[in-house]
């Protein structure tokens, strides 16, 4: 049996072997697997870059076959958070106003707004968060809701009123709270989503209507379906800049406030989307690391960004800010029941959640894998969201994702197969088969 000394002797390279190890730096895993030295690998890579520049006619990149496109800003929902100081002595009044169930600051629907929320914290601050498509949409949203918003914001310092967009814009910009991390599960604009949801509803009606019909009847109904106003009109919307919110009266896709808790109505109520807001104190020693991690985009690094459905099918949006350098503000929009939401966190993206929340005081030692302790942590640090409004509160994330996918699939299908297509019946059956998971 070898002694400790033997082990040491074996593990230490010496003599020629040690010299060789010093001279030759360890090759990279790729080079090792290819049986190349690091220098040879570097030569090859330079060659590849030059070749790709010559042949593909683009700026140098590491792939000769798929040159990178010019980077551009990602489209999709954006967010800002306002943190506004409440005037001294006005806190109670403001709180009472926001708690009043008959008071709704966001009564007028406005396009381009996904979700908006209001809450107070620390007896001093009013927070306003909005998820929008364009910054102008957010300002317009406040502007058209001036009647509801003004009584709330008037309790805050220096508020100029929402009726003047220029002053409002200046005011909003001065109250920004830095959002360190923003996760979104979809990149589509509110209009696109609204149309996609409506189109899927119409498509389900259409599918039901063609069950067992004759070929002639199928062609007629398909032709009728193709003139659906929601069908493939995204380009049209951009071109004409029509506000479709007005033309779609009756569709449940307008900005609506959060229904007040009514246990009697809960199951039958259609709303499925809920806000969650949390404020937790951060360990001072862990703050720099937390900020670094957030800015690197913890959420973006995991597969979540690429395949949100596979990983977290109930989270629409999440964002994290650091407040006053000692507190973390987490706000999310999720589907369904709180317990299910917490379990999704704990079971599906436990590691990432630990990275984000691990710096907080009172976070469970075992991390989010300890579901019960994690749930207690969330409950203990939760902030009541006073007002919440959204454009599709009754639609789950999966519904949105499916609708968007189905819309794209239908666009492709309708280009190839018109009502006069020879094998319309067979092609329709194939289409339904190929996309059956979008209809569940």
């Amino acid at each position: 049996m070898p002694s400790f000394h033997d082990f040491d002797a074996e593990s230490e390279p010496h003599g020629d072997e040690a010299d060789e190890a010093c001279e030759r730096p360890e090759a990279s895993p790729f080079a090792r697997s290819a049986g190349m030295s690091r220098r040879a690998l570097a030569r090859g890579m330079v060659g590849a870059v030059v070749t790709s520049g010559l042949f593909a006619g683009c700026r140098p990149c590491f792939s000769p076959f798929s040159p990178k496109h010019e980077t551009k800003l990602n489209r999709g929902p954006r967010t800002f958070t306002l943190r506004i100081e409440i005037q001294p002595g006005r806190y109670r009044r403001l709180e009472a106003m926001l708690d009043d169930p008959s008071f709704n600051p966001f009564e007028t629907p406005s396009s381009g707004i996904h979700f908006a929320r209001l809450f107070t914290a620390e007896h001093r601050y009013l927070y306003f968060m909005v998820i929008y498509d364009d910054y102008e949409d957010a300002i317009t949203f406040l502007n058209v809701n001036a009647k509801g918003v003004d009584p709330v914001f008037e309790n805050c310092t220096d508020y100029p009123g929402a009726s003047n967009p220029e002053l409002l814009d200046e005011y909003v910009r001065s109250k920004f709270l830095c959002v360190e991390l923003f996760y979104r599960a979809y990149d589509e604009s509110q209009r696109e989503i609204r149309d996609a949801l409506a189109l899927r509803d119409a498509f389900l009606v259409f599918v039901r209507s063609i069950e067992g019909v004759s070929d002639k009847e199928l062609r007629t109904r398909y032709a009728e379906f193709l003139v659906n106003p929601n069908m493939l009109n995204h380009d049209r919307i951009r071109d004409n800049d029509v506000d479709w919110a007005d033309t779609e009266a009756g569709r449940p896709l307008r900005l609506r406030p959060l229904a007040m808790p009514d246990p009697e109505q809960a199951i039958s109520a259609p709303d499925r989307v809920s806000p969650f807001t949390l404020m937790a104190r951060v360990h001072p020693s862990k703050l720099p690391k937390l900020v670094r991690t957030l800015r690197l985009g913890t959420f973006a690094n995991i597969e979540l960004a690429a395949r949100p459905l596979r990983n977290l099918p109930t989270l629409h949006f999440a964002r994290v800010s650091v407040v006053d350098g000692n507190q973390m503000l987490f706000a999310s929009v999720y589907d369904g029941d709180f317990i299910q939401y917490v379990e999704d966190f704990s079971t599906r993206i436990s590691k990432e959640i630990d990275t984000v929340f691990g710096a907080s005081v009172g976070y469970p030692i075992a991390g989010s894998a300890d579901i019960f302790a994690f749930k207690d942590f969330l409950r203990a640090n939760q902030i009541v969201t006073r007002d919440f409004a959204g454009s599709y509160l009754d639609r789950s994330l999966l519904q949105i994702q499916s609708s968007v996918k189905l819309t794209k699939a239908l666009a492709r299908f309708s280009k190839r197969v018109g009502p006069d297509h020879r094998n319309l019946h067979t092609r329709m059956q194939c289409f339904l088969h190929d996309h059956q998971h979008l209809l569940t």
Partner: protein
Amino acid sequence: MLELGQIQSTILREYYRKDSPSFECYLFLHFTEAEDARALIKRLLPMVTSCADVDRGVAHVLNIGLTYPAVDMFGFGGAAHALNQTDHEATGAIAAFKCGMKARAVSILGDVDESDPDNWEPVYRNGRIHAVVWVTAKQEEALRQGVGKAREAIDAAPTVELLHVQEARGFSGEYAGTEHFGYADGIAQPSVLGSGIPDHPGDGTPRKRRGWDRLQPGEFVLGQIDESGQNQFRSPFFVNGSFLVVRKLQQHVVRFREYVAEVAQRNGTTPELVASKMVGRWPSGAPLVLSPDRDDPALGADDRRNNDFRYDGDPDGLRCPLGSHIRRNNPREDPSGPGAVQTRLHRIIRRSTPYGPRLPDGAPDDGKERGVMFAVINADIARQFEFLQLNWINSVLSSTVLTLPADRDPLVGQQLRGRSAGKFLIPSSHRKKAPTIAWGLPTFVTTRGGAYFLLPSLDALWDIAHGKTYEDPNGCEQDEPQRPPDPLPEPRQPSPCDKLPRGEPEPAPSEPAVEAPAANADPPANADPPAEVTAPADANPPATPPSGARSKEGG
């Protein structure tokens, strides 16, 4: 090994299909005076069977369950109340028990329309149930004897009122082990660590590659380690007990058969296939995952094989549809839905016995009521039974595929009506064939009533019978039950009955109450006495401002 001599037998025995008793009788009682009720429990105590008794062999089994008003009447409400102060998780568990089923029926269990509590049978609707004496036997004669003895004891207690007697009996002959829709029932029960009975492959939690792990006993027996690795119930009153959910579920057999036949006819398939796709198993119990094309009675009858499957090989639901009853309620390790880590937190032990006469195949509606007496054993009603009902049956699963909230459990879900009625999709595996969609699903199973009970351990029953009290977990001496109620009611805590199934989570339990005590004028509909009536004042220390206080008042 669990203390099987302490645990009432219904908790861990005779829930597997082939062991289950065929004859059941529920005697629902109302207590007026605590002393009389104690005397009754004292008389019944020698008849109560434990798991160890069943292992030794008994002709009939008798178990006693108590609702929260009864527990409170016996002076043990404080045990539950003290637990509230110390443990959040147990708060959730006890909150459901305290509220009772009726208070949570609409908001959490989804009992609307026909199932609305207003349409329940009077005994369940009135909320007067204090206890259930549950007698089961494999022979009718043995049941008669057991019920006779129990009724003698009840008759000897002058102030105890026998509210209702509900009988249920399993079918015999070729229909043995099935329910009214004709499907084998009672398969896929959780296997419990230390229960002392052999388990069947597929009953536990799937391991990473193959094989199954048994569930921790704390999921079904209070005072034991549960799947979170913790013991949520340390009060001796709860140890070795469990929570029992009793529901009377009416099955609309003709509606089911007609609907299934109509869908089958429209889509050129057989009614049996459509119905089996909804269930996830064939009538014999053979799972669709293992036998997708036809029923296999040999497989269905083989307990070693009929539950030994996973959904990994069927991510698209081509064999067992994603929305089918068994896949929703026990997703195992579903690649398109909840994983094993999540599933293991929501398992329940089910016991269901049919009531009402079986309707022969093809027979027209005879107008008689039929269904199952459905009983659930779990340690945390909110996390187990109610979670299933709320999230997996009457809502959209946390799934990567199921998207429409309107689509609910096709078999037992409460379906919406009109335009928003749900549908059920049977995926197609043929390239040129569209999926079969069952549109406008009606509700096949409606609730006729139910209640939540605590099944105390035999020790706890002895303590109740002899008027003993415990020290609460905070170390405060429990007051005598005869102590007059505290004249100053404490501010109303946010009622757990107000819990929204969706929406914001409950605030931290120790959050300062905001409503005036006058709000107590609107108690849960089952008229639970307010907790503060018997709760000792020293068991309720003034709520210290917790970190959660920030939720209202800021940091």
